[in-house]
């Protein structure tokens, strides 16, 4: 066995231990441990990605030397390693960009707790990405929920605690459904490892046995994950949780936590149930419909919003709708587009949150649009970055958002029955996106004569400005050289099957 095959397990364990050690450290030391951890895990994931690309196949790491079907396994292919690498980079940048706000908004002597939570969150995300065992996935889903709840309420005011409670309630409903569906799947198949489950499900499906229980179990698991990742009718908790928590939390929650669950759903579709069986259940039609509704209604709510943070949060609802619409197409092309949109949305949404905080900071901390007038001149870096993010969200060429819209449109053309609604709603949603993002960009570049607010220079925000540049670069790289990434995604999805 090659050394690289130990890396996925090693990164998860490293994150858990970093969390435990950080709980006994001071603020500064915990921050250092966290930064080192993220860098190391990024390198390890990068090595895993290169290794899987080189060998061209996925590998299974057996935990505790118990062979399948009894033991617990970790499985890494191109897609898993790519996701892990991407999650680490986004988390590193989000934490860097929000660090000054964290110090302002959290009591001194308590910020180490924030780093404990992010370490745990990273470990659970990595475990969700790599695990090959359904019950392990459930346990890490719960760890993910608990640490995400901590990230929301680390900033102590009434709003965030209420948002955290609402987030917890919805998440617990989702994980209850997921657990029940999973137990039913265990009863039907007699296995907990994804590969063994898939074999049994294929036998059941071809024999036509236990048809209704199988569908019920699939529906339960899917709807549980939909609730947790805030698909359209279940998004009520989202604006408060993203809008009032500290900015790094908002960026991490919108771009990583919900994506972790969606990635788990992709794994369930491909590795537990099998793409064709899942396709035949017609659940994807429901996902398609809810995705389309989310794309429209999320954008409409964002247009009505008068608060920049909540506007970006509602935009997330629309973008999650895009991802589920891609699932709903029921083709490989739709799936590829969805996975690319996971990456693209993660890169863009965290950029928007981090840039928005720079704009509100130079407007007296107010998030109302009227106060933001001319903020793009007062904080030039944040203004430019926000514009880049907006253009990417709208789908202007050069930026990552364009590629995902293009992939969605291409996927829609391949599916004859769903082509028309998908393309129409894609068009409407793009126009709605343009309305609210361009409104904001025009607002922040409207010159004001006399203002009470002072501008900020590069020297006063070095780390912040460098983070913004890194975000822009990430976005442009995804937008310009998208073909290698798309190839990797296709290769990874092929390894899943």
């Amino acid at each position, binding site marked *: 066995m090659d050394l690289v095959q130990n890396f996925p397990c090693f990164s998860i364990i490293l994150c858990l231990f970093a969390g435990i050690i950080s709980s006994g450290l001071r603020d500064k030391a915990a921050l250092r441990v966290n930064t080192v951890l993220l860098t190391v895990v990024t390198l390890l994931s990068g090595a895993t990605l290169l290794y899987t690309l080189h060998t061209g196949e996925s590998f299974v790491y057996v935990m505790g030397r118990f062979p399948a079907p009894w033991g617990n396994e970790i499985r890494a292919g191109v897609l898993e390693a790519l996701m892990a690498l991407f999650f680490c980079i986004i988390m590193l940048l989000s934490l860097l960009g929000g660090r000054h706000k964290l110090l302002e908004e959290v009591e001194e002597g308590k910020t180490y707790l924030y780093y404990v939570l992010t370490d745990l969150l990273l470990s659970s995300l990595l475990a969700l990405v790599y695990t090959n065992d359904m019950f392990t996935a459930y346990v890490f889903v719960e760890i993910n929920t608990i640490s995400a*709840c901590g990230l929301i309420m680390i900033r102590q005011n009434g709003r965030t*605690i209420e948002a955290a409670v609402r987030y917890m309630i919805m998440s617990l409903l989702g994980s*209850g459904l997921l*657990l*029940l569906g999973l137990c039913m799947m265990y009863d039907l198949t007699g296995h*907990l490892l994804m590969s063994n489950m898939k074999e049994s499900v294929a036998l059941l499906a071809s024999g036509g046995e236990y048809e209704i229980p199988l569908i019920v179990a699939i529906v339960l698991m899917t709807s549980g994950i939909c609730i947790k990742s805030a698909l359209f009718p279940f998004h009520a908790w989202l604006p408060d949780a993203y809008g009032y928590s500290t900015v790094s939390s908002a960026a991490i929650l919108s771009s990583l936590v919900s994506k972790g669950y969606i990635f788990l759903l992709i794994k369930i579709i491909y590795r537990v149930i099998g793409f064709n069986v899942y396709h035949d259940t017609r659940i994807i039609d429901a996902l398609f419909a809810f995705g389309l509704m989310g794309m429209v209604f999320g954008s409409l709510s964002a247009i009505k919003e008068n608060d920049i943070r909540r506007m970006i949060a509602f935009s997330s609802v629309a973008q999650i709708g895009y991802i589920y619409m891609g699932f709903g197409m029921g083709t490989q092309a739709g799936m590829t587009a969805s996975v690319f949109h996971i990456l693209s949305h993660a890169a863009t949404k965290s950029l928007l949150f981090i840039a928005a905080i720079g704009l509100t900071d130079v407007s007296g901390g107010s998030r109302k649009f009227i106060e933001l007038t001319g903020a793009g001149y007062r904080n030039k870096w944040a203004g430019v970055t926000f514009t880049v993010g907006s253009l990417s969200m709208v789908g202007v060429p050069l930026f990552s958002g364009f590629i995902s819209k293009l992939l969605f449109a291409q996927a829609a053309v391949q599916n004859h029955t769903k082509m028309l609604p998908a393309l129409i709603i894609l068009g409407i949603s793009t126009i709605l996106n343009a309305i609210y993002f361009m409104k904001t960009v025009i607002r922040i570049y409207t010159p004001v004569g006399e203002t009470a607010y002072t501008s900020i220079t590069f020297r006063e925000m070095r780390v912040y400005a460098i983070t913004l540049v890194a975000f822009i670069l990430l976005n442009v790289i995804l937008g310009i050289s998208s073909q290698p990434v798309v190839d990797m995604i296709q290769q990874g999805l092929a390894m899943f099957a």
Partner: protein
Amino acid sequence: MGPNLFINYGEAVAMILFGIGFGNLLLQPNLIKKIIGLNIMDTAVYLFLAEKGYIAGRVAPIVADGVQDMEAYINPIPSGLVLTGIVVSVSVSALMLALTIRLYRRYHTLDLDEISRQLKKEGL
């Protein structure tokens, strides 16, 4: 369907309990009742698992009197899952209760809708 439902009455009860718990967690405005709903929901899943793992006439998988035959024991995996599930559910309940205490100290009510109303008044 009818006779199956009667034979598997344990699973049927578990599903009904799950529904009750789910409804409570979703619909009750009172936070403590919500947490009770959460616990009913989780416990229903454990009942379901235990019911599925049990095989009539067999005993718990603890080797006694040197009986190594697989036919003598029930399936131990669901019991293991229940234990793991209980650990998860306890920690989640503890977190929810801690959040409830925080909210109660601040707003002197357990009603989530009332808390939202007070928050709107605060204008945060």
